[in-house]
């Protein structure tokens, strides 16, 4: 079991409010990603759940039990750190087995569990090496091994893949997701990379300035962003925002259209017209950055190759069903 509930959790460091009241329900076995720009409080929130920081207010419930006064070791959670935080003087075996040793398990049981975890993570040949003799990816695996071997109620991941190169990151992303599904253990994963968030999460928590902006499944966030911040943060390239007369016609202060929901027409007469400033041809996609005069810079995405170049005139036709409307305060208008 690993159900985690936050009730009005607050954290301040001196006069600075880092977390301004977070309410959250994380179902057992789900994979939840905290995402947001740097400084939004996502790591702090994770550390509050871990018990590495004390809350300034509110409750944290693990399986219904309030743990705000429980030390980290007693919360039954395990954590994977951004820096891996392996014990440099211990072998891989010692690193993975440290938690079990602290729990006072008999030696042969520790060995059995460590070897099972190592086998899951393809670490068996490295069990007697020191962390400094391993590559980045292997170190990351050891850190994960240390987390899974204790069979915790939940895994906490603090940007665990940010120190890996791009190719390895994609590979580890898949491995972590698969491992979590296989074990069925609740996971909370902090990242600033929205692609990681979208691909790994069952549910995403978007944080900004210490507040939870939205909590929902990746597609919910993509299709029905609650406000301008979420709309702009989720999706790549970023959603286009248009204000002024055009928005007013739609009964909104701001309207937003994702680049992939703009139909591109060469020399068209209707829609939003402009001149291509930059055209990026990736083969699989074509990204156009269009200078649309008063509307500002607009981004349009075309699936596949489109032979348009900088300087060409285009008109962009937004898909009427995919226009997001926001009020003055930036909140989404529905219906």
């Amino acid at each position: 079991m690993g159900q985690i509930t936050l009730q009005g959790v607050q954290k301040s460091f001196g006069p600075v409010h880092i977390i301004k009241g977070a309410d959250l329900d994380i179902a057992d076995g789900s994979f939840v990603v905290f995402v947001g720009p740097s400084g939004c409080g996502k790591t702090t929130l994770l550390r509050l759940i871990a018990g590495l920081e004390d809350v300034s207010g509110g409750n944290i419930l693990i399986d219904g039990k309030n743990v705000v006064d429980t030390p980290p070791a007693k919360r039954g959670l395990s954590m994977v750190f951004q820096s891996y935080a392996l014990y440099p003087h211990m072998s891989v075996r010692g690193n993975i087995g440290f938690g079990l040793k602290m729990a006072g398990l008999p030696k042969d049981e520790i060995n059995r569990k460590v070897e099972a975890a190592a086998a899951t993570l393809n670490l068996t040949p490295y069990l007697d090496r020191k962390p400094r003799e391993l590559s980045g990816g292997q170190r990351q695996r050891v850190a994960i091994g240390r987390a899974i071997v204790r069979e915790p109620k939940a895994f906490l991941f603090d940007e665990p893949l940010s120190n890996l190169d791009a190719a390895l990151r994609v590979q580890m992303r898949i491995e972590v997701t698969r491992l979590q599904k296989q074990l069925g253990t609740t996971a909370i994963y902090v990242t600033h990379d929205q692609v990681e968030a979208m691909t790994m999460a069952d549910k995403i928590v978007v944080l900004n300035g210490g507040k939870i902006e939205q909590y929902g499944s990746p597609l919910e966030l993509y299709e029905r962003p609650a406000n301008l911040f979420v709309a702009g943060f989720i999706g790549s390239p970023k959603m286009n925002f248009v204000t002024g007369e055009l928005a007013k016609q739609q009964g909104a202060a701001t309207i937003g259209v994702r680049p992939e929901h703009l139909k591109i027409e060469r020399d068209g007469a209707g829609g939003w017209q402009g001149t291509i400033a930059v055209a990026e041809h990736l083969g699989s996609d074509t990204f156009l950055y269009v200078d649309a005069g008063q509307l500002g810079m607009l981004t349009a995405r075309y699936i596949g190759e489109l032979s348009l170049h900088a300087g060409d005139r285009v008109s962009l036709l937004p898909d009427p069903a995919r226009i997001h409307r926001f009020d003055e305060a930036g909140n989404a208008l529905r219906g």
Partner: protein
Amino acid sequence: MARMATTRRVVVSTIGAWFFGFLIFFPILWMVLASFKTELEAFAVPPSFLLFHWTTENYATVQERSDYFHHAMNSIIIAGGSTLIALLIAIPAAWSMAFSPTKRTKDILLWMLSTKMMPPVGVLVPIYLIYKSFGLLDSRIGLVFILCLGNLPIVIWMLFTYFKEIPRDILEAARMDGATIGRELVYVLTPMAIPGLASTLLLNLILAWNEAFWTLNLSTSNAAPLTTFIASYSSPEGLFWAKLSAASTLAIAPILVLGWFSQKQLVRGLTFGAVK
């Protein structure tokens, strides 16, 4: 061509390194050589380097005239005692400043160091009077106390920098793994801090061993360590170079041997954190 240039550079720098190494080592070598000369040969001009009449007579005289082992024992007790007490105080102090610093931690560190900026002679008279009225003059406890206090700022500074190098994440990982503060200390922090602790201990031992100002001023015979023993050979009856050299060689021998065997540890500790 490029390879030849590299070889030449290696040869030149090797010769240079040996030359400077020898230059630094020379005073000690000369002292050891002089201790085996007769008094006459010791200040002969031009000096003979190796071709002199080797004698151990000076050592015998020195041991006969003043009790080497008595002074050596005092040195061991004073240097060892002051180092151990300094470490016992400095470890928790440096620990708390490194792992839970406050706004004032930097100021406290600087304040500690500022006490080293004052010349010791400035407080000699008050300290002497205090020692006199507490009966601490010429006592081992008194010397342990003053050397411990004198070196404490440096010990705390060194340990603070070593502890600072230990990533917080690792301690937090241990905490998540269920380690109590005590077990965290035993299984994680101490093994990681050993190079730093060892070099701090060694450096402080050397500093305390060679400390001459307070030991010369606050001790006469009972508690007199090897520094006093050496000083007694620069006497008003004239300089006896050979005997002075023999006394000095005897005085630095223990610390030299210790330093020789622990040089790897010492260098590692002193450059700790410089190379990742």
